[in-house]
């Protein structure tokens, strides 16, 4: 029997492949993605590519401190971006700082997404009092400035990588919860959910196997924005001296270290970590913006 064929058989166009082909249409976004990839590689391989280990105190020489960019050390290493007050190579410091900043940002972003999705989906599906409780908590949290909540949390919790991740998760889960609840409320009314119920599938299967995958596009968009936000917030907290401890410096702490030298003309100690932070956040946002356009069904071309 003859039946109409939809696409040429053989090449199967997955949603992922379609996403990639639409993503590369914007050059700026591709630039952002490339820069972001380089930053990720640098962060990943920081110990291999750094000229020196900036936290091995035996490698530092106080005589090399506060050298301007391009100077050479006593034993012939070139400090391309200068050194800080302890004679630490700024380039190596930035590589290691990126590593910490990205790890904290990405890890807390993923954790917050998991927590937010679980609570948001529960709210959307359970309804009633559970929903009211969760969503009022979200409202309450979103009505306070994030920096204020983070400051209070860290004042109570104390310093440490685990603690700042916990603080960032507490600050950010609400954004995910609110977004996924909205999406899930729309999705659960869709006919494929009814069809899945008619197939006799179990409730968890329908929620996590059918509704959740359809809620992912906005989650990915929120995720990129929130990771950038988490990195910025962590830098802010570290700059204020209540974020990461001095043994695990992030970009924010590096900026804070050079702060006192800014007015004495030794701009590079704060300036270059600041530029690194800026580029990181801009590239994440460029990628996030394009993802939003590509994943938005209303802007489908």
């Amino acid at each position, binding site marked *: 029997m003859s039946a109409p064929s939809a696409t040429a058989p053989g090449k199967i166009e997955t949603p992922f492949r379609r996403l990639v082909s639409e993503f590369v249409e914007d050059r700026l976004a591709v630039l952002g993605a490339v820069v972001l990839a380089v930053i990720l590689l640098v962060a990943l391989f920081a110990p291999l590519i750094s000229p020196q280990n900036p936290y091995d105190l035996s490698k530092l020489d106080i005589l090399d401190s506060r050298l301007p960019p391009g100077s050479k050390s006593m034993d012939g290493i070139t400090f391309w971006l200068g050194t800080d007050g302890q004679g630490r190579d700024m380039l190596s410091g930035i590589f290691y700082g990126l590593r910490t900043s990205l790890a904290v940002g990405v890890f807390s972003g993923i954790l917050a997404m998991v927590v937010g999705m679980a609570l948001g989906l529960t709210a959307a599906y359970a309804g009633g009092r559970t929903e009211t409780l969760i969503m009022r908590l979200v409202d309450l949290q979103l009505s306070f400035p994030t920096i204020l909540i983070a400051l209070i949390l860290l004042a109570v919790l104390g310093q440490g990588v685990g603690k700042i991740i916990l603080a960032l998760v507490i600050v950010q889960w609400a954004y995910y919860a609110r977004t996924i609840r909205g999406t899930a409320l729309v999705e659960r009314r869709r006919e494929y959910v009814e069809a899945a119920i008619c197939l006799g599938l179990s409730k968890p299967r329908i929620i996590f196997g*059918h509704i959740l*995958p359809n809620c*992912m596009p906005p989650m990915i968009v929120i995720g990129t924005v929130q990771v950038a936000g988490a990195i910025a917030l962590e830098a802010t907290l570290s700059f204020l001296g209540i974020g990461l401890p001095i043994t695990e410096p992030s970009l924010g702490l590096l900026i804070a270290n050079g702060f006192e030298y800014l007015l004495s003309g030794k701009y590079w100690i704060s300036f270059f970590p600041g530029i690194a932070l800026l580029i990181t956040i801009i590239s994440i946002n460029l990628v996030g913006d394009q993802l939003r356009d590509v994943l938005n069904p209303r802007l489908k071309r």
Partner: protein
Amino acid sequence: MTGFAGPTLEVRDLKTHFFTRGGVVKAVDGVSFEIGKGRILGLVGESGSGKSITGFSILGLVDPPGRVVEGEIRFKGENLVDQPEERLRAIRGNRIAMIFQDPMMTLNPVLRIDTQMIEAVQAHHSVSADDARQRARDALGRVGIPSPDERLKAYPHQFSGGMRQRVAIAIALLNNPELIIADEPTTALDVTIQGQILYEVQKLCRETGTSLIWITHDLSVVAGLADRICVMYAGKLAESGPVDDVLDRPLHPYTKGLLGSVPSRNRRGSPLAQIPGMTPSLMSLPDGCAFADRCPRAQGDCRQAVPPMAEILPGRLARCIRPHLEDQA
């Protein structure tokens, strides 16, 4: 399969009401019918006549504020009304399957066809993924989808509308159900595709002994497909009987009006007949016959009490005290 000899499905005096803030909506109000093994029943009515709610009631899928308030739904002798959710879930998609109107919407857009089909098998049978895939492949072959192996790896958006409805039917067939409820499954399709699908469905029912309830507003679909037909109006059955008798010589004035509203080639040029007035609100039905206000034959006593569903001719029931007996040969 059990050696149950009675009808596959027997619905007795089903009442599904919706308790809204504005009042009680009697969406289904005392509907009875039965369907034997391998038979096809056409459930016909306008939108809002309660035909879809009847289908959902059978599967126990009426959402609050609605619920089945009265009646029995006997599936192979077992009453499905007020069964626990777990029991109904074991029946849904396994022994009773459902096909929906819009094939664009009923497949999950982000999951591959094989994922969705394997899942449907494994929800009811503890078989390996490979066995489930084999079943899915067979089911796609049965509904006339060429090269099922490639198709299994595709996503719903890569299928045309007709192909998608075939996939939906294949999913319904996966677990060899004893009953399929099809809710206007060909309404969204081209007539040529509709014809193909009707042909396949009819063949499958004959071959497998699956009973089928075909819910539609399209009389021409039912004419070629069903054995028996039930015409619904305002939540009640207006008429039921063998499909040829009912369509050729309707007893109930509503059925006659419905048939007269279908544009026909023979009557081209003459003004199209239509039923005057509108469907009454299900919240405030008149005391007597719900159709009385639109009926050309209505007289005073039509408005006093709801006429009972009576066997006016052998095998033919109608809810009317002035049926079209003069047309009967």
